[in-house]
């Protein structure tokens, strides 16, 4: 059948003389693309556009085809998060009435992830935490019923939103503790300057039902933890400036804080450090922690990684050191890993590129250079 068709095509060509005299190209239809079925290898890359900071955007990028699939506007200093069912992207941001100046409107916009159209918004009080780039500024409850948005005015609090009815339900004072680390259906933890976690439990109406402070589990003076919490199935992992790993279990009513362990050996301590923007990622099923590491001293905690270290979360052993320098992609400021069985590691670099690696072997697969000014926050559905 295949052969027959081929013969018919060839005959057709001969009959009409040649390719050039074949039927002219048909008129094309004006269309708008819809997205194909979502892949575990898609990433949502937040470009903060730092030199044009009112024009941040999220780029949807396919780690297999290396195609740009679409874009979501993100305004000024956005927080970006996907809904637990992956159907929606929420963007908490600020718009000014006159582009770069004028009255400030803070808003959470909801974008449908199949059409990339804005399907609604919730206007906030002008308190949205304007951080750059954005970590745990915005989060969803595990059932998707609540959205939490971090406020800093500089007083710290958070808003509880109802994404279904597009309303603000409440504002909860966090007594100086910041960010919204969601856990379960109705709990939000914030990081405190005292080295503790504040956990607020909400009632069904999204109002405060209870609050609890954890024990002190880190020292903000001698070895602060990065605020960039890495989510796990049971809570979050925090890294300290000196390379300690703090695992926090938030499945119970009271946080369970595991004893910290160190990524760096005694000889490396104080020399090799984690650093960057989105400086670590975890593959849940493999139990692997990927960290941007560099050699530096005090004050170097935002330096991108010259290496990516792969740590085993169970054994606490270092499985690999992947050097970046020879790849000429620049220091790595952001890492993210897909959660499937053939995982990809995405690395946002100081050279404004995103590199795609095999997350099992560290083999470089692709370097994508058209990802805007500052592709330093990468979400993976």
């Amino acid at each position: 059948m295949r052969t027959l068709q081929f013969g018919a095509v060839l005959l057709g060509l001969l009959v009409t003389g040649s390719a050039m005299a074949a039927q002219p190209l048909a008129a094309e239809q004006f269309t708008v693309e819809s997205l194909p079925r979502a892949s575990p290898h898609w990433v949502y890359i937040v470009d903060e556009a730092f030199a044009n900071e009112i024009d941040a955007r999220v780029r949807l990028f396919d780690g297999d085809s290396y195609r740009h699939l679409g874009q979501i506007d993100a305004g000024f200093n956005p927080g970006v998060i996907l809904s637990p069912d992956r159907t929606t992207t929420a963007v908490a941001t600020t718009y000014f009435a006159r582009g770069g100046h004028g009255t400030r409107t803070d808003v959470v916009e909801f974008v449908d992830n199949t059409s990339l159209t804005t399907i609604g918004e919730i206007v906030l009080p002008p308190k949205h935490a304007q951080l750059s780039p954005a970590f745990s500024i915005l989060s969803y409850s595990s059932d998707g019923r609540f959205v939490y948005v971090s406020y800093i005015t500089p007083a710290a609090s958070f808003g509880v939103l109802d994404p279904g009815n597009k309303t603000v339900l409440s504002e909860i004072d966090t007594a100086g503790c910041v960010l919204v680390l969601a856990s379960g259906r109705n709990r939000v933890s914030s990081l405190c300057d005292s080295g503790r976690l504040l956990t607020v439990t909400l009632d069904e109406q999204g109002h405060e039902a209870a609050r609890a402070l954890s024990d002190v589990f880190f020292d903000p003076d001698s070895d602060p933890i990065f605020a960039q919490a890495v989510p796990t199935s049971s809570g979050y992992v925090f890294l300290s400036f000196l390379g300690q790993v703090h695992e926090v279990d938030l499945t119970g009513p009271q946080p369970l804080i595991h004893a910290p362990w160190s990524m760096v050996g005694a000889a490396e301590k104080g020399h090799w450090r984690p650093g960057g923007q989105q400086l670590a990622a975890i593959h849940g099923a493999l139990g692997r922690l990927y960290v941007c590491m560099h050699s530096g001293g005090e004050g170097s905690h935002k330096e991108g990684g010259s290496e990516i270290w792969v740590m085993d979360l169970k054994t606490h052993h270092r499985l690999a050191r992947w050097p970046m320098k020879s790849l000429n992609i620049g220091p790595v400021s952001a890492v993210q890993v897909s959660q499937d069985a053939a995982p990809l590691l995405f690395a946002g670099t100081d050279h404004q590129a995103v590199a795609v690696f095999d997350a099992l072997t560290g083999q470089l697969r692709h370097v994508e250079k058209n990802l805007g000014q500052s592709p330093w926050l990468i979400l993976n559905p």
Partner: protein
Amino acid sequence: MHALDRLFEKSSRSLAQRTSRRSFVAVLGQILTGSILLPLLPIDRVSRAQAASPDSAQARPPHQAASDDPQNCEYWKYCAIDGYLCSCCGGSSHSCPPGTAMSPITWIGTCHNPSDRRDYMVSYNDCCGKTSCGNCECNRNEREKPIYRLSRNNDVNWCMANSDSNYHCSVSVILGLADQ
């Protein structure tokens, strides 16, 4: 003369008006050996085939293929486009990225397709309603005219009449053969 021969002669004559005999013969040889079946596919399928290849964005096509690559500014349909190529932004050479809207107003130009050596009338539309894509900037101006000839101009934001009038990227849509 056999019917098939007559047909062949007729079409080869019209072809000869547009190309040299030598290149025609060479191409014919390739057809007969089956070696250039791929380029005979409608150009759109070629583009999809390229886009699906895992390193299409990384491996820039060789110079001679630029006019066949919808992610390349030298693609034949883009002969007077000015802006970001939608094919690098989640759309294609003739479709808008998800979540944008095509401008209902537009301008019409003519581009020569070297693959079939025909001139096509194309419509340059902008895709609208999201902030600038920023990928694959492309500015070509064959037969483009200044703003006072609005229907031949590519400096103006053709999203101007959309309800969401921000410019995102540009497409070039085949309308048909240009007038002979």
